[in-house]
């Protein structure tokens, strides 16, 4: 049950190698196994499987919104605590500008050539790249258009 009263709740993002986020936020959009799922304060207790997609954490106290590319995992919502367990998460936070630019240009190239990719692994890579470019857009990072071949 989602309350209409707006408020904050605790969000924790954990992976086996790092605790990536621990904050109080106003809303969370999760890449659940069956599509995107929004969480607000006073959400009912929930257990859900996650799939490849973008996690959006909005209205965080004292910092800008956070975006992560998750590779599947699990979410537990209990008493205004959202705990997200993921195998791995990619974020642009803490990256240098040049690093982001290179990263995105690679992702754009992979995503642009997805029609020619036949293997399942290749298709997953292309999907991940497409999501990375989308995540950059959500995070307000300028994405340069691809150079057209002469």
């Amino acid at each position, binding site marked *: 049950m989602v309350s209409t009263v707006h408020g904050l709740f605790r969000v*924790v993002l*954990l*992976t*086996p*190698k*790092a*605790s990536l986020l621990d904050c109080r936020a106003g809303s969370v959009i999760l890449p*659940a*196994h*069956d599509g995107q799922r929004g969480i607000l304060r006073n959400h*009912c*207790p*929930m*257990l*859900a*499987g996650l799939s490849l997609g973008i996690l959006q954490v909005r209205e965080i106290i004292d910092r800008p919104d956070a975006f992560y590319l998750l*590779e599947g*995992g*699990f979410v*537990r919502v*209990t*008493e205004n605590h959202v*705990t997200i*367990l993921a*195998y*791995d998460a990619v974020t642009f936070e803490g990256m240098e500008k040049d690093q982001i630019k290179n990263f995105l240009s690679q992702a754009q190239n992979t995503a642009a050539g997805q029609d020619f990719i036949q293997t399942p692994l290749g298709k997953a890579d292309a999907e991940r790249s497409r999501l990375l470019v989308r995540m950059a857009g959500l995070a307000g990072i300028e994405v340069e258009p691809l150079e057209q071949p002469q």
Partner: protein
Amino acid sequence: MANSRQILSRRRAAENISKVTGTMETISAVRYRQYYQQWAQGLAFYDALAQLAYLMVTAETPIVHPLMQGSSSKNNALIVIGSDRGLCGAYNNDLFRQIDTHVKMARRFGRELKIYAKGRKVISYMDHQKIQPAGVYDQFAETPTAVQANQIGDFFMNEYIEGRIGRLGIVYNRFFSPASQKVQTLTVLPVSDLIEDLTTRSTIIWPWEQNFEDFFMTPSGEELFETLARMIVRASILGCFIEAATSEHLARVVNMRSATDNADEMIANLTKEYNRARQGQITTELLDIVSGMNAMK
């Protein structure tokens, strides 16, 4: 007494040893700090995983899943995580003792043991014992990436579900704290044993009032348990590799520090011996000069 030139050459050798061991200590200390940070930050993840597992295992209607049930297969699989390099004290020797125990137990109970080895030291020990490894993990240096760990986990879960293995254990140096590391075998499959281990080591088991039936679940409970069981196995395999690497570098730091201290002590003793020998040489030369002068009078 050795002459001063011999003492000097021994001191130079000790100085070189001190430099090498000191450098190795520094390198391992840096890597240890990196792995320790990963281990410490990962604790919250394993705690949360244990809480979820506890929640599902305590459901009023028990969840039946092939990964939870025992298997009738007579084959056991064992992943042994050792080091590529030596100079880390008894780190590998304790692992070898565990391998011997598993081999003896498998023989006694008429089971076939498939050993999957990580680390050159483990492979060479198995060669020496004439044990053929069923697989070798050489595609990564110390710890696998999340994708590689998932592949390892998926391989063993499929083997277990299809009845080709009855148990999976990981032999590794468990990192309890910077003051305590111990070689142990963690049973990964069946998952029920692993859940028991996870919940035992977890700091808080379940701090909430809700139970399994209070949760809205998507997908269904059975499908969620499948996802969770796979996550527990995959994450535990990755966790074991991280703990083993942390313990290895800590063992090397401790051993290299003591080797550096010993070399420094040897340098100090040799310096004293060299000075004494030099003093003796000067005294002898002075006596020669004085006695020569006396003879000339």
